[in-house]
């Protein structure tokens, strides 16, 4: 009977221990990098990325068109952009809360399709301004169509865009990114990578950066 098997396999156990330590550290490092947003930057389409590319203040805005706090924050962000035009870059990302807002994904897709026609902001303004009219409607299609007219969009091009699977995929991609970054409330902002939830926190995080510009 061969008894000293453990002794014979000591090198194997050492290697297994080293491999386990390596796997643990690599996992920890990758998850930490993910948590600290050190991974690759996920670009938004150009029509949702406004402001100078080299701006010292970069605000990523995760928003739901049907969320009242997002409507409030959206106008706040616009004011910041207006006050510091050369210093602020805003990257708009969709984070529809589908469990409470049934039409948010469609609204986001429509806004993106308007964006492909160079009118993202116009359509987004309409969605936020008249949010109460469509957000909890049973069938808001007609209301969305009115906005197509108001924003002066090409209807056929918009329909083709909505039928393109890539349009929904883009919105779902934003949602997946938001999930990965631990977003569970809207609006959530990342101001130069630092998280802020709601307009109040956004202003708190942006203020020192704005002061440092002066």
């Amino acid at each position, binding site marked *: 009977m061969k008894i000293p098997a453990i002794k014979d396999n000591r090198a194997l156990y050492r290697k297994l221990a080293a491999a386990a330590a390596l796997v643990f550290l690599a996992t920890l490092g*990758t998850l930490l990098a993910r948590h600290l947003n050190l*991974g*690759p930057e*996920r670009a938004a389409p150009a029509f949702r990325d406004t402001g100078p590319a080299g701006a010292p203040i970069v605000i990523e805005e995760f928003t739901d068109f049907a969320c009242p706090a997002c409507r409030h924050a959206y106008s706040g962000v616009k004011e910041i952009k207006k006050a510091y035009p050369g210093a602020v870059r805003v990257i708009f990302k969709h984070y529809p809360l589908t469990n409470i807002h049934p039409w948010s994904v469609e609204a986001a897709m429509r806004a993106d399709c308007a964006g492909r026609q160079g009118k993202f902001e116009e359509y987004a303004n309409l969605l936020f301004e008249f949010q109460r009219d469509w957000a909890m409607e049973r069938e808001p299609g007609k209301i969305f169509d009115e906005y197509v007219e108001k924003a002066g969009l090409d209807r056929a091009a918009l329909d083709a865009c909505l039928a393109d699977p890539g349009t929904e995929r883009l919105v779902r991609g934003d949602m997946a990114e938001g999930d990965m970054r631990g977003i569970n409330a809207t609006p959530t902002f990342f101001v130069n990578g630092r998280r802020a939830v709601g307009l109040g926190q956004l202003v708190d995080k942006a203020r020192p950066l704005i002061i440092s510009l002066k």
Partner: protein
Amino acid sequence: MKTLKAASFAQWAALAGRAALCLVLAWAGFLKAAAPAEEFAYAIETYRLFPSWMATLASLTVPWAEIYLGLLLFLGLFTRLSAALTGALLLFFQLLLGQAMLRGLPITSCGCFGTARSNPIGVELGLNFLLMALAFLAWSRGRDLLSLDGAIESLPSGGGGKERS
């Protein structure tokens, strides 16, 4: 484990191969693991070989496998096994790319490095051949120089448990 001065060209080449494989694999894995899994899953779906659930499963596991294999190769730990698994993974990628090329699938991003960058399929095929050659080199001579396998096996009372790969 040989001393550095006595190392042959093949051993140095195998060491360089381990380092190169680590760079490529660990970086490619990190780029995908740090991005939403759905994006890599979509890239896999464009090869039109697997159902959606398999693409999702692969997108959640393959990036981590790449990171671990890259680091194991770099350190020379379970070198032969890591090199063999890397070779098998690369061969699998090669088959995926090859069938896509033959079928003329409209693949705009191979998904190899997430959405961060992408080469044409032909370039990726060539790069994969090179990486497979490096994996073979690492498999055949990768344990000889600066490897944890060699270091651990040369420790006192540690000679009885050589790698069984």
